[in-house]
């Protein structure tokens, strides 16, 4: 009801921005499979939570899908071998977000599945609906845990944790997030077009696991093909598809839940607090694969795009392939490439080195040219309040940045610094080009450190 009201008022959530999307660069590109690189490097920590400990030894031979590392912690997810090969000595890699993690390299064996077989194994083939009925809720959760599934939209939170029933916080709705609001990225879009069926089946399985009665998929209205594909794939199952207005950051959990269901997640809370579990479309497909085929999460679709890459593509890649492998598969960087971003251009991290491995949460690589990354020099805040107008959470970014600059934590708290989701709308719009998000992010970390000390 209130969702209808919100849509009638034409304001699905407050604030937000409309950066140029540039999705047409890779919009039409069918998902291609990346030929297995000679070596993959599988990080033992690809999620929010506890890192895993290796269960394999160097020189050990592994098959695709074999367990590589696991943890006994609840909030953690095991990692598996994406390719058959031989385990090498552990090394350390730096992920795009700056974190150093242990990685298990695997020397790829010569004998690998053909692209067709790989596609059939991961997203192709049949996805029978009666598999949903047959599955026990607790068995679904353990299959998800065993398959190492984490949120593939970016935050990479272990999915089994979200789906484990909690009597204190019952779930009534599974919200399938197909918004993909970051400019440039098209991996979710292509997945919805080319493999809608596992998404539907996975979402229904998730609903069964957590006891939700309603399954709703939210897709931005500039992707009518994707919503149509999902509707067709639902094939009579209790699976709703709703189209939401296109606006950044529609894919943020708070914004999608607000726009699609009319519920407001409390600050500092989770969708669970309003009876919702939000799952990215790729995560749903991974759930279907884990439960129906007993296969772990080892591959994902990554968009490689931007005017700075020669041939934009949507690639099905093994987790652990390096960014360099992906860039090379797309013809390499164009001469005017100026910035390489892991993730989307609004919230992603720019890369200085391309040796980092792709993880379960990597949705895209965007290569911008010098013309895209306008060299803007920071000038003085003119207190225009545009940052306030666009903040989807109704914060006062300029004051948060000021508080962070002066390390004035009382002021930072008064202006609710911890509520910021770092979506980047404020910095996008700021006429003075103040690095608001960076200041706020650093401020949050420092404030926490000092509070802990």
């Amino acid at each position, binding site marked *: 009801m209130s969702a209808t009201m919100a849509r009638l008022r034409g304001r699905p959530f407050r604030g937000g921005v409309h950066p140029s999307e540039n999705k047409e660069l890779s919009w039409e590109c069918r998902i291609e499979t990346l030929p297995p690189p*000679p070596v993959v490097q599988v990080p033992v920590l690809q999620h929010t939570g506890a890192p895993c400990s290796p269960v394999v030894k160097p020189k050990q031979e592994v098959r695709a899908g074999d367990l590589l590392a696991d943890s006994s912690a609840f909030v953690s997810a095991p990692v598996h071998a994406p390719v058959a090969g031989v385990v090498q000595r552990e090394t350390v890699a730096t992920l795009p977000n700056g974190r150093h993690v242990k990685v298990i390299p695997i020397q790829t064996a010569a004998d690998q599945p053909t692209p067709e077989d790989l596609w059939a194994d991961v997203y192709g083939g049949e996805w029978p609906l009666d598999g949903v009925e047959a599955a026990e809720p607790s068995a679904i959760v353990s299959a998800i845990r065993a398959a190492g599934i984490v949120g593939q939209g970016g935050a990479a939170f272990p999915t089994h944790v979200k789906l484990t029933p909690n009597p204190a916080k019952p779930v009534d709705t599974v919200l399938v997030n197909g918004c993909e609001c970051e400019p440039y990225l098209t991996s979710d879009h292509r997945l919805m077009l080319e493999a809608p069926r596992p998404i539907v089946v996975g979402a229904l399985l998730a609903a069964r696991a957590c006891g939700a009665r309603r399954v709703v998929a939210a897709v931005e209205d500039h992707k009518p093909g994707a919503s149509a594909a999902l509707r067709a794939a639902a094939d009579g199952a209790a699976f709703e598809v709703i189209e939401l207005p296109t606006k950044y950051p529609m894919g943020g959990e708070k914004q999608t839940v607000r726009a699609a269901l009319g519920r407001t997640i409390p600050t500092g809370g989770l969708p669970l607090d309003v009876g919702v579990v939000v799952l990215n479309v790729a995560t749903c497909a991974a759930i279907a694969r884990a439960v129906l085929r007993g296969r772990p999460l080892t591959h994902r679709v990554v968009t490689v795009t931007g005017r700075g890459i020669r041939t934009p593509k949507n690639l099905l890649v093994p987790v652990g392939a390096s960014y360099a492998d992906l860039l090379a598969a797309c013809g390499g960087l164009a001469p005017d490439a100026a910035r390489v971003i892991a993730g989307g251009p609004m919230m992603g991290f720019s890369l200085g080195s*391309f040796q980092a491995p792709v993880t379960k949460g990597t949705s895209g690589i965007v290569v911008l040219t010098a013309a895209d990354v306008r060299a803007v020099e920071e*000038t003085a805040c003119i207190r225009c309040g545009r940052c306030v107008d666009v903040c989807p959470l109704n914060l006062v970014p300029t004051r948060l940045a000021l508080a962070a600059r002066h390390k004035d934590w009382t002021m930072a708290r008064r202006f609710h610094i911890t509520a910021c989701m770092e979506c980047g709308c404020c910095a996008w719009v700021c006429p003075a080009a103040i690095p608001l998000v960076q200041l706020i992010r650093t401020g949050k970390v420092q404030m926490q450190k000092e509070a802990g000390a």
Partner: protein
Amino acid sequence: MTRSPHGPVPREAAVTASAPAPVAPAVSVAPGPHLHAAASTQRMMADVLVGLAPLVAVAVAQFRQHALFQMAIASCSAVVSEWLFARMRGRPATLWDLSALVTGLILALSLPAGAPWYAGAVGAAVAIGLGKAIFGGLGQNLFNPAMVGRAFAMISFPAALGASAYVSPSLGIEAVTSATPLTAFKMSGQVTPIGPLFLGATNGSIGETSALAALLGGLYLCFRRTAPWEIPAGAILAMGAAALPGLAGGGTTWTLAHDLSAGAFMYGAFFIATDPVTSPLTPRGKWIFGAGFGLLVAMIRRFSGYPEGVMFAILVMNALVPLINRGTIPVPVGGPAPQTR
């Protein structure tokens, strides 16, 4: 957080056995977001200049060379002062953000056609110096620089900028042979017809005479989101509310429409009160600010000895901005953040 320092870093070749080595462009590392709206302070200021165009056109049509003279004096003085004060503070001059030019022009448009050259020159210099530079430059000032400059000039040269200064038949311009509509009404209860008052065929500061021009330029600014629409909206509503008691008392032929069209009200509401630096940050704050401005103008016109109150209303509301900002901290979507500790 271990991030590479900003600036170009050597790119490692993205090579595999299967692909040729691409040429090596310089790839830079910087914090996100990596896209930016095509907005800049300079663009906003340029927008204000575009928005001022109708007012400038009316001013020139009406006061001819005298209008050009006032605008030239104040603008030049403002730009030169900006450069001088930046040098004194050892900062790079920020002439290209156009803010000094805007300040000078806003000030010029609030002067009478016959003002002596030093009124505009000193006013603009004070606007930049006392109004802005001593606070720490653009973005740091509490009061609208143009209004600081005008107030200073008015106190220093009362004869040159007071109500009587508006009547100077020697200029050879028809409009300036009689008192401004607000003065005429205040002193002798004489009501100017609404037509000329709205279109701008009356006496007044060179940029304020045409409410229509201010409305056109102002709506352009609101449409471009260079000016927040909440401030003029609040001002007009407050002016309307202030006119209510008058209606109940039977009223005069001086109507709300006269109040809105006369003097610098429209000019002030759309161009001066909307100065980003000296107005509140949040939409709610902007409403309050606009309403307070409108109310003050109405009060000063009605109850004080001055015929017009835009300048004082702006300065008073400017002083209240920190208070308004403190009182209008928005509640985040989803409620206040849980306080740790």
